[in-house]
């Protein structure tokens, strides 16, 4: 019997073997990814509420999509998300690249310094949210103390002020994730062969020219990959912001993900939240695809 199976396996084509190996993963993916996705698309056209047992599910057409796209509040959430995305990525890209260039130099203790710099990345974002709420505490927190040490602003609150609160979450996210961008850039810097710089030296290229024509183009694909990861991650950012500001004050830090969570698991508007999740998915998927195409073109160059 066993030899029969062996013979059959040996006679299989490469294509069949490939299918045999990938089929379990494909089946698993269908059950845990594709099926829920299709199901949530279906739910987005219904009035379904997950907390109502035995509720009759009614088809509501595109009602939720229209409501979401016409809602001032949802657009405000999207603006908050865009602000958070843009500034975190922008600052992290600059700081991450600068740190990588700095740590790429072989100086005494640079290995220890690299380890220390990446520490924030190893913490849970929810935990970070909680302890930064203490750091931002206006009376006892160290943040206000440091700021007031340099410039005396008096009493001010980072997470309670509607102007400062959006920046408070940008600062914390930058603190956690700049090391990640730095590590990616560092990998790019390490991959640049020394002879390129030597040739540039021979050609009497200045340090700035070496940076523009050698360092930056070599690091750019790594940096852009880091930006892609950070973009996707921050688009669905929830835990840190939820712990730190809870979306407040008012709704000035209510990211799309917080709005989605409230609709799905507090109001239990499953149909509505499914529609919003689909819209977010299409947005991320579309933006991600365009970005990856751009990234590939850059790599080809």
């Amino acid at each position, binding site marked *: 019997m066993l030899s029969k199976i062996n013979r059959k396996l040996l006679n299989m084509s490469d294509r069949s073997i490939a299918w045999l190996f990938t089929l379990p993963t494909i089946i698993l993916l269908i059950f845990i990814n594709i099926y829920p996705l299709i199901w949530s698309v279906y739910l987005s056209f219904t009035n379904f509420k997950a907390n109502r047992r035995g509720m009759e599910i009614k088809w509501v057409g595109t009602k939720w999509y229209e409501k979401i796209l016409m809602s001032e*509040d949802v657009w405000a959430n999207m603006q908050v998300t865009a602000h958070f995305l843009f500034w975190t990525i922008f600052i992290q890209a600059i700081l991450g690249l600068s740190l990588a260039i700095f740590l790429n130099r072989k100086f005494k203790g640079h290995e220890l310094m690299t380890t220390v710099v990446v520490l924030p990345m190893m913490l849970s974002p929810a935990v970070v949210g909680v302890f930064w709420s203490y750091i931002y505490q206006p009376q006892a927190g160290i943040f206000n103390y440091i700021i007031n040490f340099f410039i005396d602003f008096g009493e001010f609150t980072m*997470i309670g002020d509607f102007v400062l609160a959006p920046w408070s979450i940008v600062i914390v996210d930058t603190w956690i994730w700049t090391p990640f961008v730095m590590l990616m850039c560092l990998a790019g810097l390490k991959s640049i062969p020394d002879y390129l710089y030597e040739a540039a030296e021979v050609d009497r290229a200045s340090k700035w020219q070496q940076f523009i024509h050698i360092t930056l183009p070599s690091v750019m694909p790594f940096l852009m990959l880091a930006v892609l990861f950070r973009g996707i991650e921050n688009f669905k950012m929830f835990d840190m912001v939820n712990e730190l500001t809870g979306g*407040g004050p008012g709704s000035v830090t209510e990211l799309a993900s917080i709005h989605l969570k409230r609709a799905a698991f507090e109001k239990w508007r499953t149909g509505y939240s499914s529609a919003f999740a689909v819209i977010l998915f299409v947005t991320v998927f579309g933006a991600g695809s365009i970005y990856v195409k751009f990234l590939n073109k850059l790599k080809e160059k």
Partner: protein
Amino acid sequence: MKVMLRGFTLFALLVVFGLSNLAMAKEKYITLGWAAWDPANALVELSKDFTKSTGIKVRFEFVPWTNFADRMLNELNQGGKTFDLLIGDSQWIGGGAVNGHYVKLNDFFDKEGISMDDFLAPTVYGYSTWPKGTPNYYALPAFGDANAWVYRKDWFAKPELRKAFKKKYGYELEPPGTWTELMDIAKFFHGRKIDGKKRYGVAIFSERGSEGITMGATSALYAWGFRYQHPRIPYKMKGYVNSPNAVKGLEFYKELYDCCTPPGHSDAYMMADLDAYQSGQVAMMMNWYAFFPGIHKNENVGFGKTGFFSNPDQLSKGATLGGQGISVVSYSDKKDLALQYIKWFATPEVQKKWWKLGGYSCHKAVLGDPGFVKSQPYAQGFLDSMQKVNDFWQEPFFVELMLPMQKRLHDYIVGDKGTAKQALDKLIEDWEEVFEEEGKL
């Protein structure tokens, strides 16, 4: 030898485990769910008498307030059997009744001679009935509560402060009778140095996530005559929710938040208020009566340093209802034992002991006792408050009504977005949308 020893150890473990399981299976017990806070400890103490008299043990699962509603409502929605008895928030009564989570208690009350007339009417209305005000009971009033105030009696008694206050405002520094007076006092203390430390005016509710800012702001709104709907036309909210007086009440609460709360008080509920008060930062604090026994015995602010007063009046009387009723969960396999607990809990003797231990009884035998008012310094305030309480919507879908109110109020009060009128107008739009979806409009 080693193998024998291992075998023997395994056998012994199995015997012990098996016996303990058998003992647990034979033991009669019920599980009671409530929030994790001071009164829960008093209930544990009280329930020992129940076990003594019936032999039924009571197990408890107390959930922190931040997760209380999520945990309990999910349990009910899934038809969970974890709890036999639940002390659920007053707003849950509609959902508990309509969705079949709670056992209707009318027949049981009739059979056991438990009369709702023995309990304070507003608590029966608030904690037990659905539809509201009808004699359909789904809970026994278990823990009366309302949003009220504490103040630093020792600061109020300082002659130099009393003199300065009278000079500035023209009347004596006493616990405020109106919100206007409360504002004067808050402004007076805000930023003032007392005993060498900078102090602030008030700690009020401003929390965004669950129900905090709604519970706080409605304390002011009710005093300005805010109503949820037309008294005779259900769900007609225009002109009531956004009445000119309601707008004034909301503006007032924002002014109080802006002028007189400690820095960083932008997301504060029960615990944050307690922290601000007990650490000596503020002169006054709003909070639930449930915390007052603890404050009265607090080493920093208790033992005579704190006074208590009910929610101030303004254009009318009003206070935000807290508290809970105790219900039998319909999915429980031990409903008979749970009902025995309710029968025991409803007796006047148990209710008297409940109050003594720190639980706010709603039984008239306790509240009507001639010695009640003087039994605790906050007893008079509690009685006053319970006569003027109002509750939030208690519809089965109250969470969907609560969250928009949280958003609109926080946007306006803390987030400085728009005007009070705009916030209340938008709130009506949100609520109308929910009522339309639920087929009420």
